[in-house]
């Protein structure tokens, strides 16, 4: 009795629908730009030139994309287990706190740093991942054992983390004598290498940008998540629980255990945001370093259909939008940063929420082609 399900060919599902969504979003955004009396074509050109037109622009774009890859993957992994992790912000915050604590501890051990300094950065990264994982494990546990919905608990824990970091920076780990809510600089051995320094020995000269080796970590995370989800037993279990928890129980897979593990992995990935921002760029912990990247990760995962390739491309798109948007608002004072946020919002709306609309349109268009 049900309507025929919307089955699209793979290429249409993975490429055509997102492209149609993005095109529609750009069209609407163009109308908004037109509405404030600017030329949308010129604005688009400025945006693209700002994001991709120079080595510096590309550096910034990839730096933003790094954040989106981590938070997008975090949402995607939880999504495969049927969980909607809205807590990327909070998990990244706690990851940043843990990284700062690790760096603080390392600073107190100059002897260790002088002997095994090469271990400092990996340890700080591990601390960040562990912090994010632990903080995401809490809602996972609550969901698995108490039935508290992760959407609610992760949102609430975002607030807890946001308050916690204020308290800690103000009262416990803040830089002594500073009026800013920030830690002292991390030890030099613990921070990540900027990309322009990393590539300089190979004769590649890049301008100085925030892009750092966390970008390489993000690329590795894309591959690792792909392997995890599609090539491991755990990934099989995660997908089974996400698609049909009863079938999982039938197969001897514990949905409760998988829920907790998937949330922990998701939180660890969200911790990558802290790695890029705190260990990679700021070299200290500052307030509000998460800056909403955790939330944009939801849009990135939706647009990327939870697949690492899609997440990578969507992260790049949002990177372009962030960097190009900054340039655009600089060149065109009428187009403020808020306007760029509007464009991002339209994109999220079309790619995420209105996805079904375009699926139907595409299905109808293709169906007509096949029948005729």
């Amino acid at each position, binding site marked *: *009795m049900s309507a*025929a*399900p919307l*089955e699209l060919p793979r290429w249409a599902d993975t490429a055509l629908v997102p492209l149609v969504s993005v095109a529609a979003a750009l069209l609407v955004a163009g109308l908004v730009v037109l509405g404030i009396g600017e030329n949308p074509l010129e604005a688009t050109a400025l945006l693209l030139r700002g994001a991709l037109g120079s080595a510096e622009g590309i550096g910034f774009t990839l730096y933003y994309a790094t954040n989106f890859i981590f938070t997008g993957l975090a949402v995607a992994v939880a999504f495969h287990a049927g969980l909607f992790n809205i807590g990327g912000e909070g998990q990244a915050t706690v990851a940043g706190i843990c990284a700062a604590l690790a760096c603080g501890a390392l600073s107190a051990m100059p002897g260790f740093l002088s002997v095994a300094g090469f271990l400092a950065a990996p340890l700080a990264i591990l601390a960040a991942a562990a912090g994010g994982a632990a903080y995401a494990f809490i809602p996972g546990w609550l969901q698995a054992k108490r039935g508290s919905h992760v959407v609610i608990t992760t949102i609430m824990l975002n607030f807890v983390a946001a308050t916690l970091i204020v308290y800690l920076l103000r009262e416990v780990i803040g830089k002594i004598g500073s009026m800013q809510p920030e830690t002292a600089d991390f030890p030099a051995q613990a921070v990540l290498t900027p990309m322009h320094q990393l590539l300089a020995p190979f004769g590649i000269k890049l301008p100085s940008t925030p892009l750092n080796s966390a970008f390489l970590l993000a690329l590795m995370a894309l591959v690792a998540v792909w*392997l995890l989800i*599609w*090539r*491991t*037993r755990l*990934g*099989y*279990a995660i*997908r*089974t629980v996400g*698609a*049909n928890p*009863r*079938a999982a*129980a*039938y*197969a*001897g*897979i514990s949905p409760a255990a998988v829920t907790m593990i998937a949330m922990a992995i998701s939180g660890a990935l969200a911790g990558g945001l802290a790695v890029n921002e705190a260990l990679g760029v700021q070299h200290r912990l500052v307030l509000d370093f998460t800056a909403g990247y955790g939330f944009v990760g939801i849009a990135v995962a939706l647009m990327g259909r939870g697949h690492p390739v899609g997440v990578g491309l969507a992260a790049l798109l949002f990177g372009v939008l962030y960097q190009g948007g900054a340039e655009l608002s600089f060149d065109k004072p009428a187009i403020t940063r808020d306007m760029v946020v509007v464009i991002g919002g339209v994109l999220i709306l079309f790619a995420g929420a209105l996805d079904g609309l375009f699926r139907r349109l595409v299905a109808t268009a293709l*169906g007509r082609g*096949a*029948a005729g």
Partner: protein
Amino acid sequence: MPSPPAIELVGISKRFGAVAANRDVSLAVAAGSIHGIVGENGAGKSTLMSILYGFYEADAGEIRIAGEPRRIRSPADAIAAGIGMVHQHFMLVETLSVVDNVVLGAEGGASLKGGLAKARAELARLSREYGLAIDPDATVGDLSVGLQQRVEILKALYRGAQILILDEPTAVLTPAEADQLFALLRALKAQGKTVILITHKLREVMDATDTVSVMRRGEMVAGFRTAETSPPALAEAMVGRRVLLRVEKPPRERGAAVLEAVGLSCRDARGTETLRDVSLTLHAGEIVGIAGVAGNGQSELLEVLAGLVQPTRGVIRLGGQILAAADRHPARLRERGLMHIPEDRHRSGLVTAFSAAENAILGYQGDPAFRAGPFLSPSQIEAHALTAFAAYDVRPPDPALKTAKFSGGNQQKIVLAREIERHPKVLLVGQPTRGVDIGAIEFIHRRLIELRDAGVAILLVSVELEEVMALSDRIIALCGGRITGERAAEAADERDLGLLMAGVTDEAA
């Protein structure tokens, strides 16, 4: 001049994408008759009825009601044309009373008062006319399934239905309730109503209908006067070849006891006792069938034995050893040779979003045979699926195809292949042929008998009493979670089992 048919469909065609669900289907049903439509799953019966009831619009063709061409574009149009439908899954609000459900959607104005009073009077009249005793103030959720179905029928009649479509109406009924339903249908017919009965049970068609048409692959392939046809002829028309309806079952000596359950009791999440003190023994090389109306503890019995639900009391012995709580886990039980074909393949037996190959390892995903180093090996998983699908004639034999795209019969074969090829000692089987076409039923039954002959102990749960009787060596009846009796298959008859299923125990009789 004879009066025009109550319903006439002329040249109905409907495509979904590349699939032609109905191809040039024509059908005429005389007023005041009971007409059966039979066909395998996916033959297009449901699509045709959905077109008639306005869920879909046909791409081509015409619908005539009492000779008048009508456009039916929504269920509201269908109701206006005097067509009523009783769905397989009832469309009732369980928390509301009978009379509330009957007026739902036909309240007759913003205020309920007048509508309810009218409905009450009308219900009383309908009940008198057709002998449908039912309390208008009873809460629907408290009624038995048979009575809920009556509410559905009353709902349709209240809306002035002259033509009543029933979709697999007996799937949820006891034999006695089914008999009552057919008596009611005959009473409706005597009042001049027209009934269309969609079913896959050939016996019902033979018992209840005046005429019958057969659909296959979207086309109307045959039409008979019921009195002039026979079940084998109908089955042949449905499948397109000769089928063996009877199960050939050689006698076999049963072996040692393999699975023993003693005093099993179980409660559901709400605290209702679903199993009460159930004890049974399965021997090697026998099929024990569980007869019972859906919802009387069969599902829970399977789940407890399969380790999916923990019993509140009782002991289970597998191969002579008492199972500790830690062993009553699906994965542990599989290792010990207890396999389970679940009742509902969509709900628990398969992940329909997965490829067929991925489903062919569900439950065995930890088997090192499917791994290459630390990772799952897609090529080995696919090779495994290809072998299994060839042995079980899964069509299409494409391991990469999404499982949702297979027909019900082929999905069931994927589950069957997965569990049987692991050489079970004990096989728990729930509804092996639900939603499976006749050709596949024959295949599945043959496989189960082969397994029994090979010495496997099989517990069979099925809502199809005929299936239980055809396959089992012993039959145990369950009612309200309690065993109400046991019969050797040779000594069992339907009436006797029907009484046991309704809770009339041997002691009481």
